[in-house]
């Protein structure tokens, strides 16, 4: 076996670092899905009547839909009746300080490397930590409240700010949108809610940490972010899940509303359990993320680093409705072993002088399949719309695949749309150059791949950029093209 192959083999042996199970007693709903389960979830969460009605409408619509088959991924049929749709940590008490936090949960966070105290003290990051669908602790709420910023769990927001929820829930991703959005709308357990009032610049990065804990529970998060006129916010989402053999379904919905002059930046690092090297286990990540630039000069920016999940299927999108609004999408998707990713974005240009940028970097190793699927649509009235897309793929090993499916639909003559894509490998000459200068082959690959992803990592907030680089290093450990 040549050196290259040996090292390639080693990659497949790198174990999932975040695999552990916390022993928190869960309060589970029975398996399966019917109207009673939807009512059960709603009752559990003490929800008002209108929200239950909305859930039921979504559920009834979902029953009329069929699972989409068009993504470039394959997996065994999901039995939607074999899933627990609600799981909450039992010892739920309202907490005033971190000290009251369940020590188990705290330990979980410590293992994740996001010690709340440390973050609170040092990083100034407000964390809304979500374990199995119930928001356990929201930090820095008071500090934020002084500025009028609302940052809370979704269920709290339902009680405290029903008018906002009523107005915006489903306004960007209606429950009729797609199969998984409908499912989420029916059974979503919790999530985060964020509202930045007019003209306020959020002084810190807002952050949630999702963690799927109980076996056999699908996580159905719902995030709603509203930036009122002239507001600015940067939002971080990080995800990990323990090692489990059953495939777990994650079908989240994220909605972002950006009013005139508002600026929302949404960053994700996703390193859910990808399954073992034979493709056993792992998370199914079927997510609908969409933002709308409602007013003029609004801006939404998505940055994602996808290294986990057995199957990733998500297209963070921006609807550019306001004139002069802009959308950005920066993505690094790494697939290894048997992982499959079908990810990309949609930029829908409706307003005049709108612009969008898409930078997507795919890296495939092992026997994985990595697809970029993106849509750029320039509407009839979107005069002077501008788009630039770049999607590059890097292949490491000869058993993986890289695919690009860009759709460019232009119906306005003043639009300028450009798309370019390349596929390449880590060059032998590049590695040789590094070797010559005393850099080991492994470090060289790391260096080259990091350089390849730099354009995207530069978009990440500081803390995440560091984490993303580490994640990449773990995913690629020892791999040489």
């Amino acid at each position: 076996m040549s050196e290259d192959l040996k090292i390639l083999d080693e990659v497949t042996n790198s174990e999932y670092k975040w695999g552990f199970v916390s022993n928190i007693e869960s309060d589970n709903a029975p398996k399966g899905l019917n109207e009673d389960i939807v009512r059960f979830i709603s009752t559990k969460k003490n929800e008002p009547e209108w929200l239950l009605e909305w859930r039921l409408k979504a559920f009834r619509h979902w029953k009329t839909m069929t699972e989409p088959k068009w993504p470039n991924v394959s997996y065994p049929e999901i039995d939607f009746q074999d899933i627990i749709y609600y799981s909450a940590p039992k010892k739920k008490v309202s907490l005033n300080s971190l000290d009251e936090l369940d020590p188990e949960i705290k330990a979980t966070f410590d293992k994740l490397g996001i010690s709340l105290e440390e973050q609170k003290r040092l990083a100034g990051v407000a964390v809304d930590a979500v374990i199995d669908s119930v928001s356990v602790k929201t930090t820095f709420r008071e500090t934020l409240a002084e500025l009028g910023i609302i940052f809370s769990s979704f269920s709290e927001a339902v009680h405290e700010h029903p008018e906002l929820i009523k107005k915006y829930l489903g306004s960007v991703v209606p429950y009729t949108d797609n199969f998984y959005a409908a499912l989420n709308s029916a059974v979503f357990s919790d999530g985060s809610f964020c509202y930045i009032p007019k003209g306020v610049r959020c002084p810190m990065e807002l952050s949630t940490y999702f963690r799927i804990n109980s076996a056999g529970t699908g996580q159905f998060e719902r995030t709603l972010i509203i930036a009122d006129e002239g507001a600015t916010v940067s939002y971080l989402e990080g995800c990990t899940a323990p090692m489990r053999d059953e495939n777990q379904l994650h079908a989240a919905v994220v909605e972002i509303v950006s009013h005139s002059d508002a600026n929302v930046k949404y960053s994700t690092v996703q390193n859910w359990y990808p399954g073992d090297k034979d493709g056993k286990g792992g998370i199914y990540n079927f997510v609908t993320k969409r933002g709308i630039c409602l007013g003029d000069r609004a801006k939404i920016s998505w940055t994602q680093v996808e290294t986990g999940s057995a199957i990733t299927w998500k297209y963070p999108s921006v609807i550019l409705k306001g004139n002069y609004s802009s959308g950005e999408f920066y993505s690094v998707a790494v697939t290894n072993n048997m992982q499959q990713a079908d990810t990309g974005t949609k930029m829908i240009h409706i307003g005049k002088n709108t612009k969008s940028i898409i930078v997507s970097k795919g890296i495939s190793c092992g026997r994985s399949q990595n697809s970029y699927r993106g849509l750029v649509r320039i509407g009839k009235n979107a005069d002077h719309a501008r788009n630039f897309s770049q999607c590059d793929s890097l292949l490491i090993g000869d058993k993986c695949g890289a695919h690009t499916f860009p759709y460019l639909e232009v119906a306005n003559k003043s639009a300028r749309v450009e798309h370019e894509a390349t596929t390449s490998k880590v060059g032998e000459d590049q590695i040789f150059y590094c070797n010559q200068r005393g850099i080991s082959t492994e470090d060289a690959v790391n260096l080259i791949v990091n350089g390849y992803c730099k354009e995207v990592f530069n978009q990440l907030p500081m803390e995440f950029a560091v984490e993303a680089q580490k994640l990449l290093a773990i995913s690629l450990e020892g791999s040489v093209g």
Partner: protein
Amino acid sequence: MPTLTTHTLAVASFLQDAETFAGREDQNSPYAGLREKAKEAFSVMGIPGRKQEEWKYLDLSPIANTEFRNAGAAFDFVLGPSDAESYRLAGKEALLLVLENGKLNTHASPMERIPAGIRIGTLSTLGHEALVTEHLFRHAAVEGEPFVAMNTMLSHDPLILLVEPKAEIKTPIQLAFVAVAGADPLAVTARVLVVAGEGSECTVMESYHTYGEGAPSFTNAVTEVVISASARLHYTKVQVESGQAQHISYHKVNMARDSYQHLTTLTLGGALVRNNLHIRLDDQHINAYLNGLYVMNGSQVVDNHTLVDHAMPNCHSNELYKGIINDRAQGVFNGKIWVRQDAQKTNAYQSNKNLLLSNEASMNTKPQLEIFADDVKCSHGATTGQLDDEALFYLRARGIGEANARTLLNHAFAADVIEQVENDDIQQSLMHLLDTKLN
């Protein structure tokens, strides 16, 4: 397989025609089974709807909802030798063969001038040749391709070109397909098989025209090309049918070791045009160049689908497609490149550039790469935009009127593709066609 199709007037009448035709054909012929299979496939698939990914941007209802009169084989030729000359595009020296409603018009074609080294005939004269039974109907697969299936079940007497090994044919061969428009909507089935023998070289052009004015015609053209080892083939496809014509073509090429091809597809006419190109690089060290140009106005719809299938290592493909879309025209480009797992050291490039000249015009582009090998260099680029204001200003500052300046820039944009055509005579006549269209 789920049927997303609409069984319409057209489908029913085509199946009826196939039934009649099958009754007349010799059931022992080596092709009868293939035709039967095609008929079955077509009756299942019918005419595809827009829910099917491959037909997403093309509305075929004008075809699906028309009851066509199938041109068939039994009719008297209208065109004579003097008519033929008006379709000449491959230069004075070229051998011009006229195919009237898909059938070789021997009266208008100088069959005696066929150059040495090449045999040209039809299924009825060359059908018994081993080369023909080996290749005809066998490369353009009917699975998933309803129009190939339809063509296979209906094509009475395909045209066959056999280039002898090592033959170097200097005379370009032009196949002029002329649809003679009549009172009723007419369906024409055009079928060509080209086998380029080992080490041979040849220049072939297919051109599509309409004769007279009348009801719309629908041409279903399928070409199978086999390029043997070390052979070189220069191929041009020109579509200048009337503004009412519907045209669906499927061009399948199989390339062998060390072979070379340069294929240009020019689409200027027709109301609804779909060009499918499927190039399979079946061995090593192959060079394939695919160029395309579509210039559209009025309410034309032109859809170009290309698939370059790199099955083996060390090959090179280069694809350049350009389009100018004016008025209410709609352009579609879908370019697929597959690089299979064994196809290491592949170089595959693709570029699609479009000019939108009107606010009613639209362009849908989908360049698609599917790569399963790691040591490759592949890239694609796609742009849609308008004329460069600065270039326009530069010309106007030098006293060139705006209309002229625009024409000049449009010409320069499009000429890029035509200039790559290797035969000077062909290049010249294509340039002339382009200018006529742009003015």
